[in-house]
């Protein structure tokens, strides 16, 4: 039996949700609409987030990156750690896959942009 207290993020209302249950049956209370119930169930059973972070390229410039799909919440720290060990060439550009199938989670780490080395040089 798991229990979770959180705020619904489906709309600005921000209903305080209490979600109790297990794989079989989940009870959501505190919500004021159907969307809140769906959100609450998902947050209890399969909470996951898209991760965004940074990678330093070989030449010292900075690339932003994200996971290609949401990562289970409990693995976020591991994936962040895996990202910090990525080495990528200076030719990296937005859309490049920096890490394929991170930690076997079926999620790729993809470059989303590369910062210019310096605005002034």
């Amino acid at each position, binding site marked *: 039996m798991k229990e979770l207290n959180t705020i619904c993020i489906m709309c600005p209302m921000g209903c305080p949700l209490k979600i109790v249950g297990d794989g079989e049956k989940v009870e959501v209370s505190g919500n004021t609409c159907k969307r809140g119930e769906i959100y609450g169930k998902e947050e209890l059973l399969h909470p996951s987030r898209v991760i965004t972070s940074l990678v330093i390229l070989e030449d010292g410039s900075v690339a932003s990156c994200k996971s290609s799909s949401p990562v289970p919440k409990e693995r976020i720290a591991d994936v962040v750690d895996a990202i910090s060990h990525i080495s990528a060439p200076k030719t990296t550009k937005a859309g490049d896959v920096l890490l394929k199938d991170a930690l076997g989670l079926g999620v790729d780490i993809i470059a989303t942009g590369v910062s210019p080395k*310096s*605005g002034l040089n």
Partner: protein
Amino acid sequence: MDRLFDCVVIGGGVIGTAVLDRLACYDLSALLLEKEDDVASFATRANSGIVHAGYDCEPNTLKAKFNVLGNPLMWRDAELLHVPCLKCGSIVVAREREQLDELVRKAEANGVEVEVLDRKRTLELEPNVADEVGFSLYAPSAGVISPYQLAIAYADRAALNGGEILLEAPVVGIARTSDGNFEVQTPKGTFKARIVINCAGAYGANVNDMAGAEHYETSYRRGDYFVLDNTERKNVNTVIFPLPTAAGKGILVAPTADGNVIYGPTANDTSLGDTATTLESLDELKRNVPLSYKRPAFNKCIRVYSGLRTIIGHDFVIGESEKVDNFFMAIGICSPGLTSAPAIAEFLTDGVAKRLGAARKQNVVAELEKPVRVKELDDVALNELIKKDSRFGRIVCRCEKVTEGEIVQAIHSPLPARTVDAVKRRTRAGMGRCQGGFCCTRVMEILSRELNIPLTEVKKGLGANIARYRIKEVNDD
């Protein structure tokens, strides 16, 4: 071998830099020791920036003497050194004419031109004085100057004329050797000197103690200020003072030489080193400004700051120690210290030069080369400049319209700017309404490139860095 200087100046505030500047006109060797990473790092960078007329000083005091002598010297120096200033005059506002009588008497005794204005004439000069104001005392010779730019310019001219400046060199001890010379000790080395001049500001009494000179009890009074956006400048023409009290000249409203407006200072008794503003004193400002000025715009505040006045007795302490010969002092220099600076410097330098038998040098630099300020150039001159150096076409500070060229110029000036704050004081990059939110990172990049240091080594000032850790290496140290 320790070098022997004719003169070591302790302290790089406006007094110390003015003294070095005047000493450098003589045929003698002079070194200024400053404990921080730039000159003008304490009281000189945080005061009202007023060039006082001198009507309010107690007659026959050093304050009166040096204020009155200093005022015209200040305007002349500002012109030669290209320091932003504005001879806008000042008014002291009062309800009744009689409240101004004492100031009028002092002005006469001090030989300062003043005029009592009735409400109508006051309003012609300053339309936004409070409704209660019936009369004002107008002093046309007063005005405002950028105090830190003045000190920096003194340091620059001194450096060009052979004066030496050592930064990050706090004096930790002063000894006297058998040959009668001083040994001034700093973590950067010991420097021998025939003459020592104590211009150490808030630390002046400590330096006196180190040298075995007269011991002074010092008290400190903090003053908090608001800086207003330059859009407020149009509402203030002159320096507006309330009637003075025992605590000082009171909370003024004034334009700044760089086009902002300030409200302040408060007067809070405190201890050495305290320049933290408090909720109470900021509230006090909000309550008191409207007493003399009816258009306070606290919502246009872009910065709060505070400075420390160092008070020894009722007057300046200026001259040679009676206990330690060849040890000179200019301490306890609170208001009107800024205005007095050039006069104090000339007085001390005359004495020192006579003592050393030093003659004036030929061919000293009198006028500094005018630094490029893109904002002040006309279109044709600007485009010619950009053709030669495109960096003058690259705006770094949006609010104050400061270019990369100006920042590089400051980093390579006679007394080089080596921190973000030092660049800010010289160029105004970061002084505008966004307070460096946009340009600070660009200034850091330029400093990093020009000084060839990593970005994590670029300091804001006073030794503190801004970009502290390289990402991904955060937990490696």
